[in-house]
């Protein structure tokens, strides 16, 4: 860890220089505290180890719809009061659901730490009595509007929804998208949600992280006070296994003709799970390939051949931890360039990662950009709390958060070639192509 791989990249011995203290309550709740008194702000963050990968067939979108219900009141918090109390005391809040997990977080002026803990404990321990059919019906409509706004009413908006089933086989926990289908959302019943909460919203399925203007002793005592009496849920069923025997055996391809302004290609491959050494190599590889104007894609297709639009080119990994995570590579054709030319160009650049070793300059550039992006992620108490929650949930120890940056910095050109050889072969490639309905049409 932390060995010098180039003469110019400053090497961090840790990506997490703030203190971390942990405890575990008798009911299984893990509590992580990272004190920083710089600003009078504190973030309370909860990672529940439940996401759309836990959803059985016919219940797609339920984990996410459930996340919405968590804002609609609980035993001692009236409908709409949760938002009012957080914002009305100066805080920012949100929650997100992805295939792996569901997280809830609020950053508050630090005198309201106890309020935030009380609110979170109440919806962990007392949501079910407050759940009503009216609330479910309303939030179902809100989520359907979220789907329309984010996916259905936007050119290329459904790419992710189309890539997942091409990448992961039927029955795999990542096969379906977190937003779910309109059909399943319409069929959602109140009892299913009550059962969902009782099954997965358990102190022993949760990590509570507090970062910022609070001491560990204070937080541990408050955690005990508010969360300590919530019952453990025994035998929480695990999600279906995400195991896959290596990369896909044959390529998959889908072509969509839709109301889009220009041809666009997505290439995607399953790689390695987030947190593995292989995925660290993929993270650096994705930056070499598609991040910034110095990347291979930009230099060769936006500059160079000038077949791709400079604003719409890139590659990134989706940080999923419970199965080989996808790498997504995308480019959009310039005026007068057809999809075939663009695809051939993209394929050639991806192949270059296998055939053409990454240079020292390329490696330094990628590591420098990743270093900045890491420090940006942990520049707020909210970013820090979420990072610690992730590493505790997924790897059992918040201190492992400090390992990621040094691990990226230790990736070598050979590591990248090896990762490319193992995961980016044409034989395992997913190709999604969007074609405009009428060529040359303007909006």
């Amino acid at each position, binding site marked *: 860890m932390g060995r010098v791989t180039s003469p110019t990249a400053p090497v961090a011995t840790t990506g997490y220089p703030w203190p971390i203290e942990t405890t575990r309550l008798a009911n299984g709740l893990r509590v992580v505290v990272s004190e920083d008194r710089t600003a009078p702000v504190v973030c309370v963050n909860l990672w529940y180890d439940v996401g759309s990968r836990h959803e059985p067939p016919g219940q797609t979108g339920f984990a996410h719809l459930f996340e919405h219900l968590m804002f609609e009141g609980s035993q001692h918090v009236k409908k*709409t009061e949760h938002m009012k109390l957080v914002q009305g005391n100066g805080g920012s809040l949100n929650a997100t659901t992805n295939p792996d997990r569901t997280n809830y977080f609020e950053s508050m002026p*630090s005198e309201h730490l106890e309020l935030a803990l009380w609110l979170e404990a109440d919806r962990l321990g007392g949501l079910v009595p407050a759940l009503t059919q009216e609330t479910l019906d309303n939030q179902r409509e809100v989520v359907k509007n979220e789907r329309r706004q984010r996916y259905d009413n936007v050119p290329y908006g459904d790419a992710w929804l189309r890539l997942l089933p091409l990448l992961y086989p039927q029955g795999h926990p990542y096969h379906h998208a977190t937003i779910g289908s309109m059909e399943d959302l319409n069929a959602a019943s109140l009892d299913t949600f009550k059962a969902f909460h009782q099954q997965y919203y358990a102190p022993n399925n949760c990590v509570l992280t507090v970062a910022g203007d609070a001491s560990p002793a204070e937080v541990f005592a408050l955690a005990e006070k508010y969360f300590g009496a919530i019952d453990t849920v025994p035998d929480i069923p695990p999600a279906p296994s995400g195991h896959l025997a290596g990369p896909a055996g044959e390529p998959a391809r889908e072509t969509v003709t839709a109301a889009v302004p220009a041809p666009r290609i997505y290439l995607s491959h399953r790689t390695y799970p987030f947190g593995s050494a292989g995925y660290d190599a993929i993270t650096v590889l994705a930056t070499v390939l598609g991040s910034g*104007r110095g990347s291979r894609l930009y230099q060769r297709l936006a500059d160079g051949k000038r077949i791709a639009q*400079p*604003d719409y080119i890139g590659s990134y990994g989706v940080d999923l931890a419970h199965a080989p995570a996808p790498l997504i590579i995308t480019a959009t054709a310039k005026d007068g360039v057809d999809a075939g030319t663009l695809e051939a160009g993209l394929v050639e650049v991806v192949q270059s990662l296998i055939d053409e070793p990454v240079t020292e*300059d390329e490696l330094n550039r990628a590591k*420098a950009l990743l270093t900045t992006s890491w420090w*940006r992620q942990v520049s707020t108490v909210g970013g820090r709390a979420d990072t610690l929650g992730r590493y505790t949930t997924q790897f059992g120890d918040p201190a492992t958060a400090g390992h990621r940056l040094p691990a990226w910095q230790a990736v070598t050109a050979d590591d990248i070639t090896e990762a490319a050889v193992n995961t980016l072969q044409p034989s395992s490639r997913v190709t999604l192509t969007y074609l405009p309905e009428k060529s040359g049409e303007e909006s």
Partner: protein
Amino acid sequence: MTLITTRPAPGTARPYAFPAIHRVTAHGGTVIAAHLPGQVLATAVLLLDASGAREPEGREGTATVLAKSLEEGTKKRDSAAYALALEGLGAELSPSVDWDAFRVGVSAPAPRLAGAVRLAAEAARTPKLDPSDVARVRDDEVTALRMDWAQPGPRADAALRADLFAAEGRYSRPLHGDPTSVAAVTVDDVLAFHQEWMLRPGVLLVAGDLDGLDLAELAEAAFADTTGQALALDAPLRLSVPAKPRVILVDRPGSVQSTLRIGHRAPERATPDYVPMTLAATVLGGAFTSRLNHLIREVKGYTYGIRGSYAMTRRAGRFEVAAGVQTAVTGPAILDTLGEIRRTQAEGVTEAELEVARSWRAGQLSVEMQTPGAIAGALASLVVHGLPDDYYETLRREYLEATVEQVSAAAGRHLAVDGLTLVVEGDGEKIKADLAEFGDLTEATV
């Protein structure tokens, strides 16, 4: 299991303070720096008086084409070498154009910031601007705008702006131009814009741990070889709100949502009513528990979210409500939206609502101002609007002390439900009949 039934009282608040501000001047320019102890990352923003408002008529988008041309090589190095030098420091250039300024920003770990600022200044002051590169960037920008305008929103925004600012020249046109105006931008327009507006020293905003930054070195990097004096300020535009509502359809066949942009003109940023207006808009459409979001999302389920706000720049302002609503409920959603605007204008706000708005706005000054980027943005507001160094402390106090009477009076003065322009981008065939109810309906040509 026993949950704690009573809501805990707050602890003792620590006093609020904006980070300490330091200044260094050199070559006619000023570095304004905020000290953020312990931050690894630092941000610098070169703030130049070269806004979109300075573009010639019919060539809207000139500044944006220039912004995107800055990285096509400098007098010292070609574009590939420039990208490698800057990104090798972990920095990327973020040039941006708004109604008041041209910004060129960079972020990097503090020890690398000076190098990044040197490169940012090299691009801003001495870009190569080879004619064939500029022409290509211009063509790419036309394509990029077409991509952007294929999404719901930009056409509706343009239609609203065209109507609100119809008599105001540059302000009637989109900030970044439209595909037609950008296509008309010539290489000479871009070169002239650079020559005319980008060579004055301007201001360098810095946010980071100043113990590791040499401000004199940053000033030298930003201001060496600059010329000219700061420009005089232009007067605000004359404010007018029409006597009756107008309804404009932006047709988007097959759209599953209708995009609403409903607004009218408002005072510019310097208005003495800034604080009560902001709080009134927070009650109406700013917070999650606002009147609009509560009714249209949480009660009716028509939308994923609806927001109402004032946007105020140096010379102009506007009030706007923005939302995407399901096509089938376009009419009812507009009716409810107008109802809440009318109620807020006529009856003002309640103490309970205002208490949420006050505390939220005040708290956000610390909660949302943690990063070097956010602090640099806050410094930019001080410069652009001529505000004192202790402004954020004053603002916080003014938020907390605002009364129901003040905020209700501001709502009465600065909301005008009968003077709204209602722009709706959606499936015309399905929503036209609904829209005609709200006023004279015209179809936008954007």
